[in-house]
């Protein structure tokens, strides 16, 4: 009789035990995740909180932009112990960026792809690349006939190479497709994304006839020592999961008068970059003196990226 009494538990005791266990367990779970960070770094939390209420980049005044940039820089310092320099340089007057690609000169070394990954802080986990180089047989015209995943000694005999990236269309279909106006064409011709206003619907990805846009399926992972710290708000600053990104002609470099990373890395000089509105620029020389063509010109997207033949 006594032993039976010891084994059975009455309802009240059971409930008491269960409730206290739930409280302790719940507290442990909360403390293990977000709660601990909340308690320990209220500064990070405050910055993150303010980030939620910032405006669309185009609606911000310069003072608000400076404040936002300062906040992002502080967040990088607190979270990753990283000193970044985020820039908000606007477009210069009388500048329209243009790009030309010499299909005769490109040898397929892919130095540009490597430089782009490094410069633009692209996700290493999912191997995001803005540039794709296609190995094409002589006579082929469109990159969808070419081989985009070659890996052998280059250049291969009887083949030529064609680089594809965002063509910064002057009449961009991706901008029209965006439901939140998170992407737009800057006055100097660069199509940019406000990463914080992108909702990740990927309509622009579907609208782009050139496969120029990339989606972050996972949180981008970059080794801290490899992060490029010279950044631009609309360019290579750190992105999060679930938003679009794209080539911006290295906005953080080009707006400072520098060549894009791909042009600087190209060992064969197949890439030409410059101001289309400057009659003395190299890009203008190419357009006026070489046989040039653009991809899918009939769509009326007006890409500012020309291919030319020596």
């Amino acid at each position, binding site marked *: 009789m006594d032993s039976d009494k010891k084994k059975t538990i009455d309802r009240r005791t059971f409930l008491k035990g269960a409730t206290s266990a739930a409280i302790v367990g719940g507290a442990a779970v909360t403390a293990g995740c977000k709660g601990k960070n909340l308690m320990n770094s209220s500064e990070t939390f405050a910055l993150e909180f303010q980030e939620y209420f910032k405006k669309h980049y185009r609606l911000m005044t310069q003072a608000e932009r400076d404040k936002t940039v300062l906040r992002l820089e502080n967040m990088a310092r607190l979270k990753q112990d990283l000193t970044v320099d985020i820039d908000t*340089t606007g477009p*210069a007057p*009388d*500048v*329209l960026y*243009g790009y*030309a690609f*010499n299909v005769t*000169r490109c*040898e*397929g*070394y*892919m130095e540009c*792809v*490597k430089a782009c*990954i490094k410069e633009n802080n692209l996700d290493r986990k999912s191997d995001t*690349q803005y540039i*794709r180089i296609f190995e094409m047989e002589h006579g082929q015209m469109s990159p969808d006939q070419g081989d*985009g*995943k*070659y*890996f*052998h*000694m*280059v*250049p291969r005999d009887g083949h030529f190479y064609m680089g594809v990236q965002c063509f910064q269309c*002057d*009449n961009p279909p991706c901008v029209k497709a965006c439901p939140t106006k998170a992407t737009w064409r800057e006055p100097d011709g660069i199509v940019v994304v406000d990463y914080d206003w992108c909702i990740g619907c990927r309509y622009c990805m579907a609208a782009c006839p050139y*496969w120029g846009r990339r989606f972050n399926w996972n949180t981008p992972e970059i080794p801290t020592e490899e992060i490029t710290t010279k950044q631009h708000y609309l360019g290579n600053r750190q992105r999060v999961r679930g938003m679009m990104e794209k080539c911006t002609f290295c906005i953080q470099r*080009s707006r*400072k*008068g*520098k*060549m894009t990373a791909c*042009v*600087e890395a190209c*060992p*064969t*000089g197949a*890439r*030409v*970059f*410059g*101001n*289309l*509105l*400057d*009659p*003395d*620029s*190299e*890009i203008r*020389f*190419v*357009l006026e*003196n*070489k046989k040039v063509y653009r991809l899918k010109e009939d769509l009326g997207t*007006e890409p500012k990226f020309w291919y*030319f033949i*020596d």
Partner: protein
Amino acid sequence: MKNPILKNSLFYGIWFCFIPGLLLLCSALTVFSNEQDVAARVKKATQKLDTTQQVDAIIPLPKNIVRAHMEYQGGTFFTEARKSEITRFKCSSCHNNKKVSILNAADISHADIKINHGGKDTPLACNTCHSQDDRDFLVTSKTSKIDLDHAYDMCGQCHFRQKKDWIGGAHGKRVTYWAGERVVKNCTSCHNPHSPKFEKRWPKTYSVPLK
């Protein structure tokens, strides 16, 4: 009293005016719209720009550059110097009348240089480009001396089409900056003059398949 014929004609009359009107308006909007295509905008931009003031940034001139002998469409320009890159320049420090012992000669001879220039039919010799009389210079077929910094003058004798493109900007490339003073790579910055063709090698990285 309502006249059905009048009513009908009025109805059709409105439609006949409305539809062509709409079409006219549409075409007028297309013709007179502010949106220009890139080609038209580029064609219209003939005004010379001050390239040094185009961006709000300080653009430093690199070291070891020389002003090229000719002008491009925008005036004079710079190119990368060559002599500072040659470790054993000046050549005349060895190529003179001083005697060199045979043991030393093995180390400092140019046996490592393999000439692969000019093809099988017309291979180039050392003295096709290098002056035999004054070793610090290159020499043209018309026996005028060329400074090594201005190697483009030498290369351009045969590769005149490439030289024309290089002056204009379709061959070679600018160094670091698209704005500011024009500084371009020299021929010898990218090509090994003794073996100018780019060699076969492995690509730097690879792309993952799309599908």
